[in-house]
């Protein structure tokens, strides 16, 4: 198995990035911040991940912080603040 994580996008982010899911290689001791930085460095529209609007993070379907370390096979989700109910 290669050292990648799955990154999922929801709602406004999914539409802006025109992507619902992608695979990204991660380095040893990589964190969620590294994933966000690597994606944002692709330029527009990916720079919204480091823009003014808040981006929430879940790792393996649990809310997480940018400093959370990642392991190969992890599922990272990036999404706007939730608005259900």
């Amino acid at each position, binding site marked *: 198995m290669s050292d990648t994580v799955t990154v*999922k996008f*929801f*709602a*406004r982010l*999914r539409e802006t990035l025109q992507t619902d899911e992608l695979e990204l290689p991660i380095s040893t001791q990589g964190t969620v911040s590294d994933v966000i930085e690597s994606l944002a460095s692709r330029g527009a529209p990916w720079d919204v991940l480091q823009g003014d609007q808040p981006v929430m993070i*879940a790792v393996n*379907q*649990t*809310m997480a912080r940018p400093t959370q370390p990642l392991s190969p096979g992890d599922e990272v*989700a990036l*999404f*706007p*603040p*939730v*608005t*259900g*109910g």
Partner: protein
Amino acid sequence: MIRIQTEDFDIGEQTRALGGTGDTGAIATFTGLVRTRGDRQDVRALFLEHYPGMTESVIEDLVTQARERWSIQAVRVIHRVGELALGEQIVFVGVASAHRGDAFAACEFLMDALKTSAPFWKKEITVDGESHWVEQKASDRDKAKNWQQD
């Protein structure tokens, strides 16, 4: 019971399913509907997206928290996803308890916490055919915070 579904639900059926054991003295329910005045004034429908899997586990965790805090006999949470027209039912939270105090409190807690922590996103579709994603409200965050314990 927690269910995420596109289909509508029957409030009477859901409410009856909560009680009837003989121990239940109170059932409190909340039903949320699509209304015309949201972030915009001329909403004709909502589109609801969710994160399958995480949604269920977040709500499951909220129900566990409610059971630790109040004396609860049964809980039912239904949340619809997909496109919902004006007046349609979006969400149902029902709690059965021996007494109304626990039923009311747990029902309100579940609804307030769900709004700010369960991964659902609403898009409003207006009469002119435009659509936009709804913003999370500070008032909703405040309501959820009020339930936090020291």
